[in-house]
């Protein structure tokens, strides 16, 4: 099992290979760690309130992570 987070100043929904995996943060602003299988994935963040998320999508190989040190895939909501 692999783990990743999507840090971003704003709140958005994490899309993994085109599928919704829920919000990137909880209501208090804490980052929510997501689980996935090892390998190459496409990750994007759908920012709330009509904001645009950059980069639009990231293709990343997720491997050798654990829940304490998840991979960080950072975004900005502009």
């Amino acid at each position, binding site marked *: 099992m692999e783990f990743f987070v999507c840090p971003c100043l704003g709140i958005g929904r994490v899309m*993994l290979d085109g599928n919704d995996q829920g919000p990137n943060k909880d209501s208090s602003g804490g980052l929510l760690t997501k689980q996935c299988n090892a390998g190459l994935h496409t990750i994007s963040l759908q920012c709330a309130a009509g904001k645009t998320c950059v980069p639009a999508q990231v293709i990343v190989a997720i491997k050798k992570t654990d829940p304490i040190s998840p991979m960080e895939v950072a975004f900005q909501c502009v």
Partner: protein
Amino acid sequence: MRLADHGLMLLCVAVLLVCGGCAHYPDNPRLASISANAGYRYSVVRPLPDGDTPFVVLAFSGGGTRAAAFSFGLMEELKNIEYTAKGVKRKLIDDVEIISSVSGGSFTSTYYALYPESFFRAFPEKFLYRDIQMGLVWQLFNPYNWWRLASPDFSRIDMADEYYGNTVFDHKTFADLINMPTGKSPFLVLNATDISITHRFEFTQDQFDLLCSDLSSVPLSRAVAASSNFPVAFAPLTLDIYNKQPCGPLPMWIELGMDREHNPDKRRIADATAAHSYREADRNYVHLLDGGLSDNLGLRGPFQAVSTTDSPWSILKLANLDKLGRLMMIAVNAKTTKQRSWDQKSSPPGIGAVLDVALNGPMDDVSFDSTEMVDGHFTQMEQLSRTVVSCNKRLGQYCPAAPQIYNPISTDFTFSELTFDNIPDLRLRRCLQELPTSFALPRNTVDLLRVAAGYLLMNSSDFVAGMKRLDPAWQPRQVVIDPKLIDRVCGR
């Protein structure tokens, strides 16, 4: 006989032969355009779980009527289980989300998915106590079928499909499952084997998207026939691929999963390559045999669903959505273990015995690996979760100012396997392990299998522990197997 009579007779024979030659398996229809909100998909037929009630996944193995009766026994026991959570009383059977099945187990799973209300009353007479095997043999004596079987596009498995449709499944199709009220029936995953690529093939719209075909009007009997298409007894079942007219793109993970350099998991590469193959120009048809050839437990699909986000019915995705508080997986494994005395003599076993080993040996081995994979995965997830908890404990002790680490694994995992190997009574265990694989079993044998499943569930330490975590007040029912019934089936 006059020359004219001879001529007439020859003409009749010729007409019959030509008509027979025209017989064709029922084509699965083309799908013009893929729609994520239509077709037989988990997200279409099941509401998003609330995360509070257990998410129950059942896997029914192959093994003819033996497997069908054993899995029916599990369903009977689940119907009796009541628990209280958050002050609300529920039946565990109402929490069954997904049933993945193979071969004989597919008759039980399909009938339950189709008729959840009348299942317990009707299924035993409709299938379990019925001599399905003789019914299939009688089809071969019907002259109408002789001519049809002369066609290269119609085989014994298409005849079996018709027979199951007539006698068990009332010609219902996947559309009948789609049209049931949402959440009324569990999501059914019928597994067969694509023999060209030796890979699991499931009868879901997500799989049929790859073929650009619409599953909705495919009869359930056809899917069950494919799932229980025992090699040699039947010929492979054929499906059409419509990849010459595009219906929509492949799911994103498939292209990504084929990258050999960046995917450390060889299973992902194999799954992606298999999925991609349906869009290759030289594939026009799929040929299917028994699901047991690739997974005789029906556990591979659920394992992919709990361990990856690639599965079209990913359970891991539900964990990411915080909708998976408790996952209970129960595998019904009707495998047999024959007592063999070959090694007492120097002469090797005969060809029949060797064929039996060649066919069933690898299946049993793969089944063993499948249960170990699921069990190992759940254990690993629990270990990872405990590591985070321990780490937070240490942080609290030695670095109280530091923020706590978020634990993404909040699911309670339970995995139980029902197998004859766990019957403590040696005579009963051997008796069940020696049962034949056929579609005809004596009534007493069926009854014994039903009660054995209940007994095994109520005596499964994993299941009981899982139930206790769910409802500490819950107590397992004491299931007693009638000694007279054992005597009648197993002899004194």
